[in-house]
């Protein structure tokens, strides 16, 4: 092919443009550590990476949910633990309050039971990060309110909460309920902690009955009705605590699974989107060498610009 005056400069220009564009692209990859960063670098891979990143972000959020639920479960458990202690003591008193006790001793026991009820109400009005723990989903006001008479005896404990339990997701489509409502009298839904119509638990009322029987010195009623009733209440509390323990174990397992999933997603994303530095650096080095060579040879030929003219003069 015949070479004209413009042929060489034009071809040098286009070669340098191509090499410098390649160099720029590779340099970008090395600097960001990413094989793909713009939408047009590899659209199919970009799509996959975006979808995985969304999944990864959701998994992180589920872990946060799990942490939040675990905190709630732990707080619930310590309150229930306290309640169990009260229940144990009430059972003890009911056993001790037999016909051999004097009226004065019975009265002392009665006052102790009053205090136990108050402690119980206080425990049941514990708060967590989302409001009251044992009011079901009516978390804005205290679940239990005790009414006292002129002598300081408790006449009744009213439940102001409801029977629902909040459930939150720990994985997609996997809701978990941690809450225990204070009372469930409807017979359906989550079991109540203090009162449950299905298994006959009615802790505060039974304690009030015990208190009243002690005041009245009615030890027969105490042994015939209060003692078995309180035993049922204690069973209920114990089973709720076991349930709580199971839930906490479940949450812990779910968290490990989520951690594994998160790690595996990160690896997958990295495989698809991160640059293989060794390979990229090698390519960059090769391109840089080619660019420098093109610059040198081009410059030499352009600056010499030999033609017949130099030899004719």
């Amino acid at each position, binding site marked *: 092919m*015949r070479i004209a005056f*413009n042929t060489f400069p034009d071809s040098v220009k286009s070669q340098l443009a191509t090499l410098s564009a390649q160099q720029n692209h590779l340099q970008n990859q090395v600097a960001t550590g990413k094989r793909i960063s*713009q939408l047009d*670098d590899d659209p199919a891979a970009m799509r996959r990476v975006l979808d995985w990143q969304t999944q990864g972000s959701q998994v992180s959020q589920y872990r946060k949910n799990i942490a*939040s639920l675990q905190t709630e479960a732990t707080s619930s458990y310590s309150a229930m633990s306290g309640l169990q202690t009260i229940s144990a003591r009430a059972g003890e008193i009911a056993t001790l309050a037999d016909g051999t006790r004097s009226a004065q001793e019975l009265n002392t026991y009665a006052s102790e039971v009053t205090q136990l009820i108050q402690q119980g109400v206080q425990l049941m009005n514990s708060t967590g990060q989302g409001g009251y723990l044992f009011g079901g*989903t009516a978390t804005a006001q205290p679940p239990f309110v005790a009414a006292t008479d002129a002598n300081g005896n408790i006449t009744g404990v009213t439940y102001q909460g409801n029977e*629902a339990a909040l459930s939150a*997701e720990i994985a997609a*489509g996997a809701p978990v309920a941690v809450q225990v409502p204070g009372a469930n009298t409807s017979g359906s839904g989550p079991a109540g902690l203090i009162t449950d119509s299905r298994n006959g638990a009615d802790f505060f009322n039974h304690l009030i009955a015990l208190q009243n029987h002690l005041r009245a010195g009615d030890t027969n009623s105490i042994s015939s009705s209060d003692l078995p009733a309180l035993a049922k209440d204690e069973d209920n509390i114990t089973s709720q605590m076991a349930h709580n323990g199971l839930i906490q174990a479940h949450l812990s397992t779910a968290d490990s699974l989520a951690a594994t999933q998160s790690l595996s997603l990160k690896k997958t994303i990295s495989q698809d989107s991160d640059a293989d530095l060794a390979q990229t650096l090698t390519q960059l080095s090769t391109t840089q060498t080619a660019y420098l060579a093109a610059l040198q040879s081009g410059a030499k030929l352009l600056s010499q610009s030999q033609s017949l003219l130099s030899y*004719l003069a």
Partner: protein
Amino acid sequence: MPGLFGTLNLGARSLQTQQQGVEVSGHNLANASNAAYSRQRLEIHTSTPTPTSIGPAGTGADAGAITQLRDTLLDRQIQGEISITSFLQSGQTALQYAEAGVGEQLQGATGTGDVGSPGGLANDLSGLFNAFQDLSTTPSSMTSRQTVISQAQQLTTQFNQLDQRLGSINNQLNQSVQTDVASANQLLSDIAGLNQRIAGTEAGAGVANDLRDSRQQKLEALSQLANIQFSTDASGEASLSLGGQLLVSGGTVQDTLETYDSGTGQLLVRTSGAGSPLTPTGGSIAGTIDVRDGALQSLHGDLNTLATQIISQVNHVYRTGYDLNGNTGADLFTGTNASDIGVDAALASDASALQASGVAGAAGNNQVVLGLAQMANTAQASLGNQTFAQSYHGTITGLGTALASVNTQLADQESVQTMLQAQRNSVSGVSIDEEMTNLVMYQRAFQASAHLVSVVDQMLSLVVTLGQ
């Protein structure tokens, strides 16, 4: 026999011829770096011989014509390729504006928890649903409520901004079509003017080489704007048409181009006189229109569809919720599409107005906000059975695919065009070495003819003093 005076005349004419040769070489050298120039040659032929007793005797040389070395087939091919390259280039530019406008990039180290760019729509979408999830664990928490509200605001602001950016890109593209049409009209009148001058010059003697070079340059500039068809008929009359519509015939501009509103605010092209719509298939005008009405319109449309769906699906669930004060029925998102999507103004000042609960009076109930959180993984029928996030990812990677495809096509096209231009350069380009050689050749011939004149002059002076 021509005689001494005839030979003197021969010498004089030869001097002129060689001088013309030097001029042509000089002209070529001066235009060596002119990309639009094609090298010229002086055609020298023998002058008419005179009959003598011993047969016809030569009478020297005359300059016949100055011709240019040009391959018209290559020119037509290059014009065509320029149109295609320009079509792809303008498409690429428009798509690059859109990619920059969308602003999604994978940044930094893997595992920062962001989806795409930290400030992009994909991340805002993910952030909103995560905020719903967070609120579902503690529905009465004012902090979590505040987070939901500000994530929602971020999302709506991002939608508005994207919509604005795409709208302004659209305006830019319309303006560029207008500018291109104005340039095209200017070129049409330039070409008509050149046609006239070429015809006028060639009515005399020879070929108007430099004017033809200029005209070819203008034709190539016009081919960049639209894929025109240029032809000359047997009588040499040049005509130029676009999409079958005659625009230039000889020295007159028959019709020019104008833009018109197709009814949707988008500019299209038609002829000014006849008003017939033109749909060029090459050149930057067509490339811009193709991307504007194709990839960009569907991007903008998909964005609006996504916004509309989010508004309606979220509000559908949200409306049934109760806030901390027992109110219900309000909407979370206001507006109808990406341009006007917003967050209920009442929430900006009062986070307790967020309707998270499924029943009145239960501040710890999270049914509604849980339903909203679960929407992140719900396939939406009107989004092609994809989730909101999947739909958006699909939309923007569709843009990426279009741009990647244009990039590949353009790279291939540019190498084809470069090859053709190199071929043309090979045929028409000036070579300094050749011109220097020719220059020396004409110089020597001039010297020789000058010597002939001085020899004949000596002979003549001898003859003149013969009788003395």
